[in-house]
């Protein structure tokens, strides 16, 4: 039976770049060839969440949300808009981080929909955070002498989003690869504004756990950390701040390896992705510097 992958994301009415990471990861997976069809659907763009399923011919569809945590979108908006018959958040049996998959019939198309947990809470997301550090430093072995910060919104709006930040910060710490690892927040302590206070290491990689670049990752955070006075003038990577070198990575969701997390989600849900995970991991790798560099 043919299987389709549908990656669903927020999208934007105003920011043309919002959909770019979703497209890019979908393309990577399409090229790996594990699915007959790979489609994207958006809350604010087209095809809409409402109509994306009918653009797939397959009877079996794996839906992976490009969201960072479990919450309003993954629990209410997406299942409702996809018309997942009998959706009940309890079916995920999640502690806020552990949603993996629940299977339903789409009321309008009759397709079997394997509705997966969001990319942001998958364990392999930790690898993407680390990969992001490799990308921004250009060093596939980055770690020694470096501090590592994962940045999120904070608990103010959604408790689960902070859980995801802590979860990945712990996992990066457990790798024992970076000198220090810290979870930081935009709207609560420990705050990203004071990033350099939390690190002894001269070099600090800062990776926001966001799906795509936008207002927070391109304006707020760079200004709050003191990388620049005005986001419009840009900032250096690394930027000198209070005697530290801050390597600001921008949204983790733009990292090519994100495609792997999407695939892992679908694989965990039972999709046959044999070989594709290895292919995607290989094709999204950060090149080691040339020997004579």
């Amino acid at each position, binding site marked *: 039976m043919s299987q389709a992958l549908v990656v669903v994301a927020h999208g*934007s009415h105003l920011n043309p770049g919002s959909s770019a990471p979703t497209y890019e990861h979908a393309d990577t997976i399409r090229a790996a060839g594990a699915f007959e069809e790979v489609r994207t659907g958006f809350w604010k763009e087209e095809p*809409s969440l409402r109509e*994306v399923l009918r653009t797939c011919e397959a009877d079996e569809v794996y839906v992976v949300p490009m969201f960072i*945590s479990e919450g*309003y979108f993954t629990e209410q908006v997406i299942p409702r808009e996809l018309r997942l018959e009998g959706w009940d958040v309890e079916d995920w049996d999640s502690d806020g981080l552990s949603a993996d998959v629940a299977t339903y019939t789409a009321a309008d198309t009759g397709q079997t929909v394997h509705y997966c947990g969001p990319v942001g809470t998958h364990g392999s997301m930790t690898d993407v955070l680390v990969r992001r550090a490799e990308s921004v430093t250009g060093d596939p072995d980055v770690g020694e002498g470096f501090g590592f910060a994962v940045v999120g919104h904070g608990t103010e*709006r959604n408790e689960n989003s902070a859980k995801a930040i802590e979860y990945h910060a712990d996992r990066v710490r457990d790798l024992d690869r970076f000198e220090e690892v810290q979870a930081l927040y935009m709207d609560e302590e420990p705050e990203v504004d004071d990033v350099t206070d939390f690190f002894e290491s001269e070099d600090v990689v800062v990776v926001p756990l966001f799906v795509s670049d*936008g207002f927070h990752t391109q304006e707020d955070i760079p200004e709050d950390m003191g990388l620049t006075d005005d986001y419009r003038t840009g900032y250096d990577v690394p930027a000198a701040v209070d005697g530290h070198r801050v390597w600001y990575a921008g949204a983790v969701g733009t990292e090519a390896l994100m495609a792997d997390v999407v695939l892992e989600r679908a694989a965990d849900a039972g999709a046959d992705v044999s070989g594709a995970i290895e292919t995607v991991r290989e094709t999204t790798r950060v090149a080691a510097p040339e020997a004579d560099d």
Partner: protein
Amino acid sequence: MPARQFDALIEAADADGGVEFDGLRVSRAGGEAASGGGYTFVTPEHEAADLSESELRAHAEGSPYVTNWYFWEHEVRRHDSPRRAFLRRAEAADEHAVHERYEALAEGLVTEWGQLRIEATLPDADDGARRYDVRHVADAGRAVDDLETYRDPLDARELAKYDDDGMYRPLKTATNAPTGWAFHDLGWRDAVETVETLYPATVANWYREREGTLDIDHWSDTAERQTGIYGVVEELPREAVEWVAEAACDDSQCVKRREWQYDEDDELAADGGDGAFPCREPCSLVVAAARRWTKLEEEDPREYTFRLTPSEKEQIEGILDAVADGRVDGIREADVYEDANRYRTRYLRAKLFDDDGDLAGVPTDPAEHGHDGEDHHGEDHDDHDEEDHGDHGDDDHDGHDDGDHGDHDSEAHGDHDGEEHDDHDDEE
């Protein structure tokens, strides 16, 4: 005719029932290979029976009916699918006989789909494989070499993102599709994919409508379903929904044909348009704009008294028309006969606005005096700010999807800095 096509024909003729498609009938006496009987070959123009295989080949050779059969039954396949129905439409296959279509395809058979012009051609009639060219209808007469040409349907995503002025297009079926490009020499699969990328889900919905299974969600269904920051749209008055449809869903704004009404038994008076494909429910742009209109409609009207000359009144009406019809950019700098001409408008502002930016010196709120012009404009933006906070609070429950923040991003760019708004907030 390629050998594979004749082999396929023999195989199909030998099978139970033989071939019967688009005027072509090929079968074997006795109905199957084991019978050893001769073949029958029938087209609307031609009939031959009791043929050996080599005689059948002679009849089939060069017959458009055979290559046509092969294209539809061995290439496109998928009976009862949107993609097949769409490709059949592209050559009016259900209305015209094969030989007519082949003549037309040799010249190029053109259909339109919103602002898209789709031309089906048949470069090699001996093969029957159609090729397609997809471009903007405005580029109908242009040579392919004059256009940016593409082959990969996925390139249509980036292309469809911006209009000819480089502005972001949040609605793919808006009437501002860019010009100057062509997806040229596409196979049937890529042709459908290109159209579905430029106008997502339109083929699927058109097909459902054709089959009588279009699932329409009327305004009241869609409004009721909303939660979070969009929950308020349910409160938009019935008459305002009429204006929403007139403002946003008119043929001048969107190439879809609006099929949704206020509710199943309550049609909107606004014209749904003549688009080739249906709009089955209020889109996310309409819902987002309706949220703004819901908030604006919560205000009670007040009576203001302005003194205007007749021409000034008409000029204000003319400016409204020009902005609403998107004509402002086309008004020439020195054309002072146009109401929305920049000098005319600046003159009117110089004459009618007081230092606070109030029209004819009449304060918006009679109780409020003396805020400056910037703040006056700031009022609207404050609402924006509030909405953004709302996004964080509700829609943005997941917290980190930057899409919404991206929204904030662009709004902030458009509208000066947030501090002003904060100041204003404080004043209130």
